[in-house]
């Protein structure tokens, strides 16, 4: 079966691990266990009428203490750029990180996940901003690892983009 390496990128605590857990195990945990190093998971999906294994590299999120190691991204076929919709800062950080990725790794398919969409009252991302991003070519998904909303869809869009390449 075809295998594709997919990385989870984004600032710390935006919900990268939670999205993987929801996607792979259909589970969610309110508690925050920061990822140390990399956790590798996998899931078989069907995209464009073909089964493929997504090998998911859930990488620790950048914070003030540690930068992302670009070497983990080598050879990846696509990535999910995750943003915490309740912290606007994480979107700016994500886009900056994205620039670094593109310049070092090159352009590969990506999906932007605006996560924690269940927390609507704390939502900090204006609809205008989303329109801009879409115009800039981003595939956007408002996800919630907690409720499971659009999680499957985000990964599926990514898989389809990878297969279309």
């Amino acid at each position, binding site marked *: *079966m*075809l*295998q*594709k*390496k997919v990385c989870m990128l984004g600032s710390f605590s935006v919900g990268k691990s939670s999205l993987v857990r929801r996607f792979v195990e259909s589970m969610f945990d309110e508690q925050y266990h920061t990822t140390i*190093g*990399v956790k*590798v*998971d*996998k899931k078989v999906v069907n995209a464009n009428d073909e089964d*493929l*294994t997504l*090998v998911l*590299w859930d990488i620790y999120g950048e914070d003030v203490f540690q930068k992302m*190691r670009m*070497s*983990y991204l*080598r*050879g*990846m*076929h696509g990535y999910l750029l995750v943003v915490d919709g309740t912290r606007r800062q994480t979107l700016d950080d994500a886009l900056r990180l994205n620039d670094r990725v593109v310049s070092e790794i090159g352009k590969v398919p990506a999906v932007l996940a605006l996560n924690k969409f269940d927390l609507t009252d704390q939502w900090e991302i204006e609809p205008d901003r989303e329109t801009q991003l879409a115009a800039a070519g981003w595939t956007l998904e408002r996800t919630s690892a907690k409720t499971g909303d659009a999680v499957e869809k985000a990964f599926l869009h990514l898989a389809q983009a990878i297969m279309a390449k």
Partner: protein
Amino acid sequence: MAEQAQRRAFEAQAQEKPTHNNHAYEELRHLIVAPEQEGIATIQERLDNLEKRTADVSVVVAEAIQMRREKGDDLALAAALAPTIQETLRESVRRDPHVLADALFPVMGPAIRKSIAETLRGMLESFNEALEHSLSWRGIKWRIEGFRTGKPFAEIVLMHSLLYRVEQVFLIHRETGLVLNHVVAPSAPAQDAAMVAGLLSAIQQFARDSFQPGQTENLGNMTFDELQIRVVSGPNAVIAAAIRGHAPEAYNLAMNETLEEIQRHYSSALAHFTGDPGPFRAAEPQIARLLETQYREKPPETRRPRAAMIAGAIAAVLLLGWAGYSTYLLIEWSRFLSELRKQPGIVVVSYTKDGRTFHIQGFRDPLSEDPKKLISQAGLDPDSADLQLAPYYSLDDAIVARRATALLHPPAGVTLSAKNGELIPEGSAPQNWIAQLEEKAPWIAGVSRVDESHLQNSSLRQLNALRGTLESVVLLFPLGRAELDSGQETNLAQSEKNIRALIAQAVPLRQVVTVELVGHTDITGVEAANLTLSRERADQIRAALLHNSVNSAILLPRGVGTSQPLHDESSEEGRRLNRSVTFKVTLSPLPAAGTASSASGAAPAN
């Protein structure tokens, strides 16, 4: 500072010679010599002043050492510096051991670990050798261990002699960390290859970044408890092997060779890999070759056979054989004895073995199986048995049945069995045998009752059959006449024979036979005349039978005229049948024993 010194030197000179007449000369001299003098004074000053000299050397000391080393003469320098450095270190430790400890900490850990690993490896190897040289002793120990723990010997040997086992081999695409192929040793636990491969390459990346930045060399070994992961990397592919135990360094060579082979063979597939492991399926035999299991050594049996060992082996085989055969005999004899105990009519009270002879004491019914024959049938030597079996009457059902059979001689078709003292004959027997059975059975040892419910009396059956035959006979007469029809003679003769047989067979059954001769007529004529005619006909038959000396007492002639017609007379045939004599047999038991003999005596003597 230098300027100050210069000025001071100049002033000192001026004060020493304050003459005015040679002022011009002084002027000149000053003009010519002063700069040099000042220079010399400065140098003098620098040489004399320790502080200044130190300052000067400090500027060049590092360069000087460097230059010295570049000249390739650093051995001398090292020799010169060594005592000082040693002293320095000693002093440093004396003053504050923490400073040096902290400084050395990063290098000490790995150094110690490495040294321990080396020591352990060495110990393992010498331990192996020691084991090799104490082969037989070890073998015995393992056997004892096997006996003690109840584990099969083979398992103990395997446990002790398994050196290492390569449980899984992964072929991984280096750049993406995706698994290209994966093989698992039979019965080894397998993990999800995709995830393991990913994690392994993440660890590799981490190690590369953290410990060896810039270097392409890879982390070769990772150890988790007794599981070791060996990794060899090529430009595009990585082979990782999960090994239980301690594989030799040579194993890495095999891994590298395989990797090179794969790199060569799949170079373009590796370079253009986009996640499809399909093309690498063919590499399975190559990586499967890396799944190896190595034992510490070959099993003991295959070691060099020496003469002494052969002799020893033969002796052992003989000894074992003898012990085995004796044990076999003992087992066979005890099996035979338990069989013998089950035999009806044989009681084993005790048995002893002395040398090769088995003494068996007990009782035996003469009708039981011959014990000697049983010994031979069991495959044992009857001559090695000493049977002391006293005769007795067994009340065992099987023997009782056998005894009854021997005494009663049942006719063919009759079998005898016994159950709890009851004799059960089955089948069909003539009356006289049944009489004999009833008379003799109670006298047979072990028989207290006879159950005759499964026994048929064949004599009685025959008697009834004869009676039926006789009663169906119709002796015919012509119309209005009392003489038998012509052609009825054979019929009469047969009936007479049957009457005789009937009488004969009734005797053992203790029955008295009477035969009524019933005369009939058709309805032609008046009834009074018919009655007479019917009686005449019956008398006629009686006379014929008496003539042939059938006992007169049992023949009772009777005329019934037309009162008991055999047929309706609507046809001539019906009427013909009614002109006849028929038989009616009556059986009545002999009244008493006293008269029985006279009744028997009444039986015809042929």
